[in-house]
């Protein structure tokens, strides 16, 4: 199963603790270990939101914006794609990442096209609706 691991910078998280950040393992060891094993297959750091470029097509015209769509303090600082046998394995990998100590990690399971053809697709769709698409 594949997961997009969003590496988040969360400067306003009230639960951040300097002692956690100080005890964070080095990123080099994480990269070596998980890219070495093949658990992480692709990833990179991302330029800050100021360098983001928004693209929307409205009324047939491509609107390009300078900067992010919304000003939030929480930003995606980087990402990795994990190929893990299951969620617990992905959680264990994420929990070793230094930004799990200094920020936050969000794991997003891939949702391959076709899987929603499975018999419970209708339930999934109904639930997504009930959840407000969350």
């Amino acid at each position, binding site marked *: *199963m*594949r*997961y997009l691991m969003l590496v988040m910078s969360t400067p306003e998280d009230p639960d951040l603790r300097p002692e956690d950040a100080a005890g964070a393992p080095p990123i080099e060891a994480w990269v070596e270990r998980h890219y070495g094993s093949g658990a992480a297959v692709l990833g990179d750091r991302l330029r800050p939101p100021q360098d983001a470029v928004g693209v929307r097509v409205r009324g047939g015209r491509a609107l390009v914006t300078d900067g992010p769509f919304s000003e939030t303090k929480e930003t995606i600082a980087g990402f990795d794609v994990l190929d*893990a*046998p*299951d*969620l*617990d*394995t*992905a*959680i*264990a990998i994420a*929990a*070793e990442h230094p930004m799990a100590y200094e920020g936050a990690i969000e*794991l997003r*399971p*891939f*949702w*391959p*096209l*076709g*899987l929603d*053809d*499975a*018999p*419970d697709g209708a*339930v*999934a769709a109904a*639930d997504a609706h009930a959840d407000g698409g969350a």
Partner: protein
Amino acid sequence: MTTPAAAVEDAFRTEWGRVLGAVARHVGDLDLAEESTQEAFATALRTWGRDGVPERPGAWLTTTARRHAIDVLRRRRTEADRTATAVRLAAPLEGAATDVGPTGHDPDDLDGLGDLDDPDGDLLRLLYTCCHPALPLEGRIALTLRSLTGMTTAQVARAFLVPEATMAQRLVRAKRRIKATGITFRVPPAALRAERTGDVLTVLYLLFTEGYDAWAEPATDVAGGTDRRALAGDAVRLARLAARLLPDEPEAGGLLALLLLQHARRDARNGPDGVTRTLAEQDRSLWRRDEIAEGLRVLDDALAVRRPGPYQVQAAIAALHARAASAPETDRDEVLALYDVLLGMTPTPVVALNRAVAVAEAHGPAAGLAVLDDLAGDPALGSYHLLPAVRAELLARSGRPDDAAAALRTALGLVDREGDRRLLHRRLEDLTGQRNDRR
């Protein structure tokens, strides 16, 4: 000689979770596992009368359920093969869950699997899965109850006082999330195991409190009465299971001991008048001595491991109360010492409030009031009736009946359980000398 129907019923009580766990692990799909387990019990009802009760009912049921699951998977695969999505469907499932044993995503792998001899392992995997922190908390509680005890959705709904459709939705969501996020039926990896075990114990404790709260209510006033009260017993049974499955985890024993010792007092917690009885007021002859004895035994075994935790400490406090022949004979200094330890482990306002009571018992009401003053501003306790109720008790003991009455009125504005409301009313009447028969 038991009848086949009684044998099926008996197997349902003892084997449901094991059969479900075994099938769930192999097919990686809790819905299919549930359906197959139900089917196996239905088959048992039809055939045990004719063919006799099998020697190992659990193994028979597991084999039958697994066979049913394989049939369903075969049918699904045949249907899927007809569509172009089959290729994409199969790709992400190949090699999934390499370290959790055969997952059975390839139905042809299932037939030859004979590890029926590890039903406890499958129960433990099922327990960790149902209590996975990536699931919504109320879904975890409902799923644990449904999966480990075999209670129907309707029964679970009744116990939690929600419509069946609501409970069904809660269960469906939790199961769908297991699938969508890639939770597998496994014991968590070593790095996560301690926390995950704590998560399991939390779910069992919350399940217990649902039922335990109902026991403090006047019997006639408990909404969903027997169903809700029964949850406490269910939780004790599940805690016993967890303690057996996790012999190296003293907190599992601590939780079991705590639940046994608290549940043992159930018949004394509310009087015939429907008024809640405080620990000091309870008729101790109503306490279940056999359950207390088991709780004390379990606690001693857990403490012997010398890795204390909050459940063991709370159980140790409960044990001091259980051992005292009467309230005044309680070892109050020891109770306070244990609350100090507990507060160090879990510095929550509720623990601090309980510690304030222990301070008052050990050193007098003035000392207790001083501790309460420090807690007064805590927003977490702002709507908690026990803060003013405890204050009222200590003020009354300090010879300040007017202040005590004022605190009781504050508490009455916050209390939500009927038994507790009656207790506060009685205290107020005792203080003000006006006894108008309120019910």
